[in-house]
């Protein structure tokens, strides 16, 4: 039997979070969450102060993606709560485990349009996995237990806990439950062996099979299983952008990400395949373009933990519902039992390798010394392979997808679903808190970085030395590229000017700022940053006219790639 203790709701929240293993909270205090903040004085949880609540949510998100445990962020009621909403929506779109705790006006004030009141439960509903609003302090221990369980099981996602101020302040007899039941929530389904068997038959009888690894492969850490299957059956592997790095990108069978800015060889082979093993992916429009163009001759095997993803965007031939790692394990075991192993290269594999080699030689790159490909390959060359990379959102993000090879699986993270500008830097801070032992780099663009650049204060004051690798083209580059491509070069609202000076900006926060205008300077800058015990911004001016290519225009097929001319 659980022991009963009398304490306030705020105290119960902290005790319950300690029981969940929480060591850090990212947040910002305000009137309605002060009782919780007061409890930091008496617990072993570190508070990391942010400069904007959106950044707190992105930090928790970055922490969650790297540690696979929910990151926790705190915000006050009203504007504090609405500010974290973008961060919550980002976590939901990318299935990232998170606990967001907001203060709320006292119960008796709810619905009275009180000062700093917002109906955050109502607003957040479509972008959370679940939301709680305990109305009595005694509910809090159970809410925290259930909240963490919901956030990290099945398809992970953000959980909101909105606590009215009087519920934080009032005392109750608290029971911290070990066991609980959520009647309507069964996150794990055992993969159906018959369906796995059918999937194997389909892969074996295919002439041009391909594996499409999505973000779910990374979330469930199915790296070894994925590699086993690819190698046993000698099947080339493409990924979605979210699945980038699910499979080592220096592996001979790796073709890299498909999609709007996928690798040419990946898009090409995807359109030529006759059977795809799709693992933990929702077939997003950015990944598959118009899939109808070739789905008629393409057999689709779909593995996903979320049954609602089966058939949502894509009709499948075989579906295996369950944790993708568990499903792939069964598949590996069955293949081992059958002693099925391909050793001879068939015509398809030869064709794949030739195509890959062709594009390695023939993809036209920016001619300048400081072209995006050269810059990102330099980063790859200098960074230790276990380093974690996050990205902002924009051209630099797609260049990272194209030219930064992830070698150690699960070390690359980006806001892929919601595409939230400003995500990469705070997410890198969260990632570094989760893994202080490895270098963490935010591959950034100036437009996106400027949205959350004030997180430099957090990085400096809290001693979280991350590296901002800033490809600075002084413009909202991706929008500029669309205006050049689709709007007859009418450039509207994209010029950021040479403002601010990012070296001085970094220095004004007490961080290190380095400008790199040549490959030599870049090489030195990365090495200096890696040795630094303070956050570093490497400002790399680049050509504002450089486009991200290849490019699959929205609403068209992967077969219709626009290539560099």
């Amino acid at each position, binding site marked *: 039997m659980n022991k009963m203790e009398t304490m306030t709701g705020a105290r119960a929240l902290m005790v319950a979070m300690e029981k969940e293993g929480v060591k850090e909270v990212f947040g910002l205090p305000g009137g309605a969450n002060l009782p919780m903040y007061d409890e930091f004085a008496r617990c072993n949880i570190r508070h990391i102060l942010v400069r904007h609540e959106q950044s707190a949510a992105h930090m928790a998100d970055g922490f969650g993606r790297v540690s696979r445990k929910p990151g926790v962020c705190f915000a006050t009621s009203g504007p504090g709560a609405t500010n974290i909403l973008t961060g919550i929506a980002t976590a939901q779109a990318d299935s990232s485990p998170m606990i967001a705790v907001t203060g709320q006006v006292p119960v008796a004030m709810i619905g009275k349009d009180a000062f700093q009141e917002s109906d955050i439960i*109502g607003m957040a*509903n*479509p972008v959370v996995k679940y939301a709680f609003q305990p109305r009595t302090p005694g509910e809090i221990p159970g809410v925290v237990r259930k909240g963490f369980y919901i956030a990290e099981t099945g398809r992970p996602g953000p959980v909101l806990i909105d606590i009215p101020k009087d519920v934080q302040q009032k005392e109750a007899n608290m029971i911290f439950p070990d066991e609980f039941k959520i009647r*309507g929530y069964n996150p794990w389904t055992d993969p159906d062996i018959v369906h796995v068997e059918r999937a194997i038959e389909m892969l074996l009888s295919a002439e041009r099979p391909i594996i499409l690894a999505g973000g779910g492969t990374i979330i469930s850490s199915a790296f070894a299983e994925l590699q086993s299957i690819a190698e046993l059956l000698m099947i080339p592997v493409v990924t979605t952008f979210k699945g980038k790095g699910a499979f080592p990108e220096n592996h001979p069978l790796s073709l890299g990400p498909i999609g709007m800015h996928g690798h040419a060889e990946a898009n090409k082979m995807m359109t030529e395949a006759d059977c795809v093993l799709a693992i933990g992916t929702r077939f997003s429009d950015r990944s598959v373009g118009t899939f109808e163009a070739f789905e008629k001759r393409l057999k689709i095997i779909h593995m996903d933990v979320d*049954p*609602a993803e089966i*058939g949502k965007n894509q009709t499948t031939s075989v579906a295996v519902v369950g944790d993708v790692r568990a499903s792939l394990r069964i598949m590996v075991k069955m293949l081992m039992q059958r002693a099925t192993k391909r050793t001879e290269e068939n015509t398809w594999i030869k064709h794949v390798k030739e195509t890959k080699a062709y594009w390695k030689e023939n993809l036209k790159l920016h001619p300048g010394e400081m072209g995006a490909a050269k810059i990102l390959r330099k980063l790859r060359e200098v960074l230790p392979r276990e380093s974690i990379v996050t990205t902002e959102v924009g051209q630099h993000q797609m260049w990272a997808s194209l030219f930064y090879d992830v070698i150690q699986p699960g070390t690359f993270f980006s806001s892929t679903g919601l595409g939230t500008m400003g995500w990469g830097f705070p997410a890198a801070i969260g990632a570094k808190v989760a893994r202080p032992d490895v270098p963490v780099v935010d591959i950034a663009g100036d437009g996106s970085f400027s949205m959350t650049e004030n997180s430099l204060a957090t990085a400096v004051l809290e001693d979280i030395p991350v590296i901002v690798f800033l490809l600075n083209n002084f413009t909202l580059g991706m929008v500029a590229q669309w205006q050049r491509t689709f709007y007859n070069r009418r450039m509207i609202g994209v010029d950021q000017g040479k403002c601010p000076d990012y070296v001085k900006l970094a220095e004004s926060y007490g961080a290190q700022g380095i400008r790199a205008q040549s490959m030599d300077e870049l090489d030195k800058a990365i090495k200096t940053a890696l040795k630094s015990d303070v956050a570093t911004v490497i400002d790399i001016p680049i050509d504002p006219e450089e486009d991200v290519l290849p490019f699959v225009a929205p609403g068209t097929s992967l077969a219709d790639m626009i290539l560099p001319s």
Partner: protein
Amino acid sequence: MWAILTLLVENKPGILFKVTHLFRSRNFNIDSISVGVTDNPEYSRMTITTYGDEKQVEQIVKQLDKMIDTIEVKHLDEHKTVYRELSIFKIKLSNANDSMEVNKLANAYGGKIHDVRKESIMVELTATPDQIRAFEELAKPFGIIEVARTGVAALQRSGA
């Protein structure tokens, strides 16, 4: 395709909001919705009727099922289901014969007569939505002043 969905959900505040919000955000349509507590006060039963092709209805069911507050979601086969809707019609009476005619019509559909006035009459009709629509067509010539409908309540037949 017209589909009847039955949901067993937690009887807690905010669940109806979540269900209807799901329909809105996923771009589905609600034709009718009715909610009431079950014999077990911990649960409510919702009956939702909706339109969509087979794939859409399958998606709606999956998305509803994914909701943590739903215990059970079923797409009911209307041939194996008892489903009824309650409707109340206020109908205009223009001449002496109308009252009798409306009475006859109501009887034919198993309706009940309420609130008989000189200028209007009310008919309560519990039937399938199709029957209610048919009644409405026939009542139109008299002049329908107001209609209130509850939405469908449905349960699957035993052994079906």
